[in-house]
């Protein structure tokens, strides 16, 4: 993930994974291209029909809390959303996102409104998030350690196919 522009799709605080995709939907199929029709159905029934490829999901605190079910990450990706901005993430969703190549960025999302154009640019200093409407800009440091390596590899599958195991940078350097 380098540079990206997309419209903000706004959700609130404490959005749990059942709200992202219901456990009852997951029992019929794990195919994210089918499940994406039900994305956020419990809290915003119109969401799945209006989401566009490249949209940026913008949440408040504790995004992805509750169940650790991984379809909550794969369905967001299947809907064409490559990035989630949140004030904070639940740890299981955060890991699942990274493992599937969905970029989670912790940042201040308080001034981002539905539909705002968000542009992201990444360099060695990290990722800069610009709200084009408000002009607010924030730079977040790059993900370090194994999480950063997994994300850079494109997810846990390509990472483990390449490495065969988990490798800490400080261990591989020695």
């Amino acid at each position, binding site marked *: 993930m380098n540079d990206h522009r997309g419209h903000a799709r706004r959700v609130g605080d*404490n959005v749990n994974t059942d709200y992202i995709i219901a456990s009852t939907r997951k029992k019929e*199929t794990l195919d994210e291209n089918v499940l994406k029709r039900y994305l956020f159905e419990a*809290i915003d029934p119109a969401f799945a029909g209006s989401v566009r490829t490249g949209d940026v999901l913008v949440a408040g605190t*504790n995004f992805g809390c509750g169940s*650790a*079910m991984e379809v909550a990450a794969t369905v967001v990706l299947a809907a064409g959303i490559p990035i989630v901005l949140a004030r904070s993430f639940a740890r299981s969703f955060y890991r699942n996102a990274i*493992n599937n190549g969905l970029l989670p960025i912790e940042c201040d999302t308080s001034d981002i409104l539905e539909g705002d154009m968000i542009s992201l640019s990444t360099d060695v200093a990290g990722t800069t998030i610009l709200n084009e409407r408000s002009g607010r800009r924030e730079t977040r440091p790059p993900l370090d350690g194994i999480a950063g390596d997994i994300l850079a590899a494109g997810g*846990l*599958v390509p990472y*483990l196919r390449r490495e065969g195991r988990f490798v800490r940078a400080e261990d591989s350097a020695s």
Partner: protein
Amino acid sequence: MTGQTISEKILSAKSGGSARAGDVVVCDVDLVLGTDASAPMAIGYFDRMGGTRVHDASRVVFALDHYSPPTSPATKGFHEQVRAFAAKHGVRVYEVGEGISHQIAVERGLARPGMLIVGADSHTVTCGATNAFATGVGSSDLAAAMLTGQLWFRVPQTVRVVLDGARPTGVAAKDVALAMVATLGADGAEYHALEFTGPGAAGFSFDDRLVLSNLAVEAGAKAAVWEADAVLGAHLAHFSDRGEPVAADRNARYAREVVFDLASLVPTVAAPHSPENAVPILRASGTPIHMVFLGTCTGGRVADYHEALAVLERGGGRVANGVQLVVTPASSEVERQLAADGTLGKLARMGATITMPGCGACCGTSGVVPGDGMNVLSTANRNFKARMGNATASIYLASPAACAAAALTGRITDPRSVGVA
């Protein structure tokens, strides 16, 4: 030098180094738990990772608990997929009806002191009651743990939860747990481990501890570890392998300390649609209830049904008209004990719907789904909108005793008032 918390010590031992809060470590995992809701996807990741063999099949267990029984061709297919993978790789499967993965782990002695346990189910944290570091992961991490025997972790800071004073009569572990979630908030323990301690801890039975560890994830906790003491020792006495107890150093560094004055707690209800919406039951009293659910990894153990039955009998033993009482034991072992001591028979004669052990109605994956507009009072851990499979239902959470009281009256009722003239 600063000492270590229980979590830091376990992650140190499993990573072969010194693990301090904030460090990233790669650990050997002692127990890997998968379910029918998470293992099918994990098998897909495992195959795409190029997996040909499970690193150590003796450390991996699957439980067919979410779709118990399977109610569709798709869920039946998930079971067949899990069984086939398990047979190929020599992984033990706990079959449909044998129980919930983390309940099986504790009651069969698979979860023991000092262990590092990962489960592709967020309520794996329940196993922290055994003085283990137990945490929930997704399917891809489950696959990685099966493939490599390891997983990476950022060592969490620890919140020291001090249980102080004595619990009043009529205040259940569930009431303490709901108050804990409300006090911490839905994200109050995010990225943190909890460590339970304090003079009041000894007053919590092993089953009580499972309830507090279970609910800890509703405050975002990564793990919820109890100390190894005589209460845990009594539970472990049933097993030959009793693990390696881990104690925190006296000078361990904690992110913060939260003290619960147990004497001040009262029966509690979490209102829709979040477990953090916990309020004293008196503030919700009178709310009509149409379905009462006694079950799950929070409230589906033997002591829970005994508490519920005691309230039901004290109140005359008649379930109110218009209330469906659903009973789903957390495991076949719980079911066996309840059948043997007559509890299940008594509940059945009161009109309870008794279903196969497993997750049941908790997340709408099997069991009874509430009708449109119904209010449910449940011993479960989550009351998110649509959680039980109907977005128009409203779910309240409470103790087994409070659930039983509502079954008698058809409305939220302080269980302490039942049978009092």
